[in-house]
């Protein structure tokens, strides 16, 4: 995207009917480190890559618990993400207090989307620079939504956002049809494999990723390091033996690495280009 006369203000339309400031906000999401979500009929898994700014610092939190039955993973300006998570927690707890019942996730994402839309129609505000993968339960089962800075929201079976997410999306596109009936364990394994795709060659270690899960009869919680490492060990340790998975996965990883998507190339080439606001 190039600079033009219509991109200074969020309240200025371009002659082709675009709001450039909103589109620039969506670019910020693509600069953040990857976040992945997938769901079965009864569970939702959210996973993300832990990127620390330097070796001295710890990594930023990108997955938040909103309620026992809702979790959110963010990519983009983490400060904006933190504020929106606090809003989501507030909405959820207010609903629980009044109705003694969990807020259906479908209603929460609409509140969130409406909040984001306001920022696209006020001259004194700017759009939130964060994409949210909201996973949660309601009466009809498990759901995964993606909320965009534009105020749109979409429901997904599986999705990935942030830098090098195209690699993860390619992997998920191949496998998503089986997710609906996946067991909890298979869903976690697929999430971790998708995270591996975004690392593009870097060895997958449990310290590099955070995985969380929620489901019917399972409140939102993070998986601890050992649990993640155990899953990684099932496919990383002996790639030659595990023919059905190991080789196929290695092949996929190479194919994905060979053709980096435009954001993958851009962000990968210069992590120095990543704005300091984002991890």
């Amino acid at each position: 995207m190039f600079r033009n006369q219509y991109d200074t203000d969020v309240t200025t339309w371009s002659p082709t009917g675009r709001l450039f400031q909103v589109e620039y906000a969506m670019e910020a999401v693509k600069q953040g480190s990857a976040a992945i979500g997938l769901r079965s009929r009864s569970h939702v898994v959210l996973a993300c890559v832990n990127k620390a700014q330097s070796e001295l610092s710890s990594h930023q939190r990108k997955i938040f618990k909103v309620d026992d039955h809702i979790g959110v993973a963010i990519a983009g300006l983490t400060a904006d993400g933190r504020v929106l998570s606090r809003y989501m927690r507030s909405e959820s707890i207010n609903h629980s207090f009044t109705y003694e019942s969990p807020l259906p996730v479908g209603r929460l994402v609409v509140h969130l989307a409406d909040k984001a839309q306001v920022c696209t129609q006020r001259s004194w505000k700017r759009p939130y620079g964060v994409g949210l993968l909201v996973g949660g339960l309601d009466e009809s089962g498990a759901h995964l939504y993606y909320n965009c800075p534009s105020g749109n929201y979409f429901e997904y079976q599986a999705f990935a956002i942030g830098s090098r997410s195209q690699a993860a999306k390619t992997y998920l596109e191949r496998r998503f049809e089986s997710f609906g009936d996946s067991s909890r364990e298979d869903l976690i394994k697929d999430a971790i494999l998708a995270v591996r795709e975004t690392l593009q060659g870097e060895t997958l270690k449990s310290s590099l990723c955070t995985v969380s899960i929620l489901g019917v009869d399972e409140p939102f919680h993070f998986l601890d390091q050992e649990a993640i490492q155990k899953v990684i060990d099932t496919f990383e340790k002996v790639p030659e033996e595990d023919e059905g998975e190991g080789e196929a996965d290695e092949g996929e990883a190479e194919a994905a690495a060979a053709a980096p998507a435009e954001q993958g190339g851009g962000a990968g080439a210069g992590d120095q280009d990543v704005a300091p606001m984002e991890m």
Partner: protein
Amino acid sequence: REETSDRERGRGAIGVSEKMTFTIPIENGNGVKNAEADSQRTLYPYVTGTSVVAIKYKDGILMASDMGGSYGSTLRYKNIERMKAIGKHSLLGASGEISDFQEILRYLDELMLNDNMWDDGNSLGPKEVHNYLTRVMYNRRNKFNPLWNTLVLGGVKNGEKYLGMVSMIGVSFEDNHVATGFGNHLARPILRDEWREDLSFEEGVKLLEKCMRVLLYRDRSAINKLQIAKMTEEGVTVSEPYSLKTFWDFKAFTNPTVGAEGSW
């Protein structure tokens, strides 16, 4: 002074049996303001309904109430429906001030309308409505301006039966059988002895009629015209009004003071 005349007015007014003096001394020196402020709060009920009795049974909930609205000691209105369906899953029965019940129905109408407008496959069930009402009643009580009702909320959603009660001061709980007003004293002892899990519809109705008959004999604000409402997974139905058979020729009724202490 304004305050004394308020109190006097309260005491003599209609002779309402449930009347409570509800004047709060407000020290602000301006007598006129007190009267205005007081006239904004609910001090006592005017047109009231009497007991509501409800039980859980095998397929859902059964609720009974009569159709009377008393104006103090006068049985003035004889066609008031004190039970109304709320959405697809719940039924609300009320005793106490009828106008406050109608106000609550307006609140719930708005609540259910907004719930339906979401059009997303989620819906507010009896538990959610009960808790919403608890919040409303308790908040009004905290402002010293109560909705003068005791509410019974029952329903079935996704196979789960729910029966709860909220009072005018915000006391709220769930149970297998509930009653309001005189029903607490006359009906619940019967229910405690005779209620069981998995009553059939006929057994449930018979049990409720037994309670309502006792209330009819012993509660002066009860009238012999009642409705029974049924809630199951399929939905809510409120019966047509009907009367109970009564027997007034018991010897004790024909000559009540015979054998009484101090009589001859």
